[in-house]
């Protein structure tokens, strides 16, 4: 479910607005660390977690906005490189900052007292993220983003404030990445810079692409599949070689061959026509 929130965040900027970002992990880390530190230093009590998570998300969103100002002068691959660079900066920053544990990681973060509670809270946040992002997607703002996705020049000529909209979309996207990060921190109780590496971004990206860029329900379902699948594949026979490590990539590759637009393409679950 946390993966789903992360993927929703990325899907909004990459899927709807077609701005290829590889900085997810950076924003997730920002949200996670902010919320973790806040809980440990100020709030202490577990019932403040939602507030602290929202503050973490806001910090991440603000960072997203700041990053977007210089980086949206670039497009496509270059934008991807800049956002990736940002994620690395964030990671290295936390790695060398002793206050948050440096490479040892930050532990004894306030956690939900019960597992079920964390489950409910994450579910609520996921619902919130989904409703907001889906409504934005089908709103007038979403239409602007689709236009930017299709043809920036034409959108600009039609009077769409292209760079302003892109910055806002990036901010919204990093807000939800940060929110997911905070959830992650309070579920695990321990975070370290190592877990917010490039691999995390790639994971989130795979979910978005598999679910269909621009499909919010697609992201949710794909994250469920991609989280459950490696676990299910554990039941495959293991010998000297771990077969599941071969089967999983094969599934991904065949998915890309037979359905390159992702599970749902741009459509939502209920918009699919059953043939």
């Amino acid at each position: 479910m946390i993966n789903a929130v992360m993927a929703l965040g990325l899907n909004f900027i990459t899927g709807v607005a077609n701005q290829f970002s590889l900085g997810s992990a950076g924003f997730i880390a920002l949200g996670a660390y902010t919320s973790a530190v806040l809980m440990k230093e100020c709030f202490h009590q577990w019932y403040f977690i939602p507030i602290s998570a929202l503050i973490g998300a806001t910090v991440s969103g603000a960072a997203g906005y700041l990053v977007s100002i210089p980086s949206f002068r670039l497009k496509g691959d270059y934008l991807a490189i800049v956002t990736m660079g940002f994620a690395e900066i964030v990671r290295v920053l936390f790695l060398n900052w002793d206050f948050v544990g440096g490479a040892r990681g930050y532990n004894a973060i306030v956690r939900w007292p019960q597992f079920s509670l964390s489950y409910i809270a994450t579910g609520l946040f996921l619902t919130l993220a989904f409703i907001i992002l889906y409504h934005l997607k089908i709103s007038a703002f979403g239409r602007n983003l689709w236009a930017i996705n299709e043809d920036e020049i034409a959108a600009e000529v039609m009077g769409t404030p292209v760079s302003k909209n892109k910055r806002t979309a990036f901010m919204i996207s990093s807000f939800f990445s940060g929110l997911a990060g905070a959830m992650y921190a309070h579920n695990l109780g321990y975070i370290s810079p190592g877990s917010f590496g490039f691999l995390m971004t790639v994971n989130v990206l795979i979910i978005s692409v598999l679910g269909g860029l621009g499909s919010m329900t697609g992201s949710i379902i794909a994250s469920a599949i991609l989280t459950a699948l490696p676990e299910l594949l554990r039941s495959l026979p293991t010998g000297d070689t771990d077969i599941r490590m071969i089967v999983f990539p094969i599934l991904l590759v065949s998915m890309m061959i037979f359905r390159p637009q992702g599970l749902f393409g741009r459509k939502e679950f209920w918009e699919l026509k059953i043939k």
Partner: protein
Amino acid sequence: MSPNKILKINNLNLSFGGIKAVSDVSFDVHENELLGLIGPNGAGKTTVFNIISGFYSADSGEILFSGTNISKLKPDAINKAGIARTFQNIRLFSQLTVLDNVQLALQQKTKIRWFDCIFRTRSYLQYEQNLKSESLELLKIFNLDQFSTDLASSLSYGFQRKLEIVRALATKPKLLILDEPAAGMNQTETDDLKKLILFIKKNFNLTVLLIEHDMKFVMSICERIVVLNRGQKIADNIPENIKNDATVIEAYLGKRSYVTNH
């Protein structure tokens, strides 16, 4: 009495590296006029268009639109000022529906209300409803409403051109700039286009600036013609005089002696 000048272009200059794409071009567009801008390939017509619509900024010179200087504005601000344009190669949002294409253009006049967007309040739904009916009405005028739920890319070439013009109209411009609208059209389609342009000019109270290659088309429709060659203005007159203008003929066909030698 001199007519009201809606667009004034003064001493425009632009070079790309060592090439002077536009050099010292000045002309005016009068209110409610249909002005044609013609010239041989590479004469700088599209460059002038791109400067007007804000994609290039000129090295020097200024553009006054209804008396205000717009030469430093960005494309979206220029659109808000009241200039809409179409493209030589059609640029529709091809994966969006016909209706969305128009709605997108129409909605730029209103501000995005975040709270309403996220919570889909009643007033927001009302706003979307109005936007939809207004767009449909506009499409209906041009007999495109039957395609409203189709993807823009599924339309035929002629309809795509038409839709692009409708989309430009949806931004409620005072000046409409058409970049080679007749490109790639056959005779019937060109005739339809001619009717369309005259129709919108009359019914939407517009000034139209037209770039075109098709001489017959330009001569039959434009009230006045500006001719560019190698980045310079070489003529500015009514169509009859342009046809007989020695410099224009030379620009298009070459010098007489050169022609007879072959």
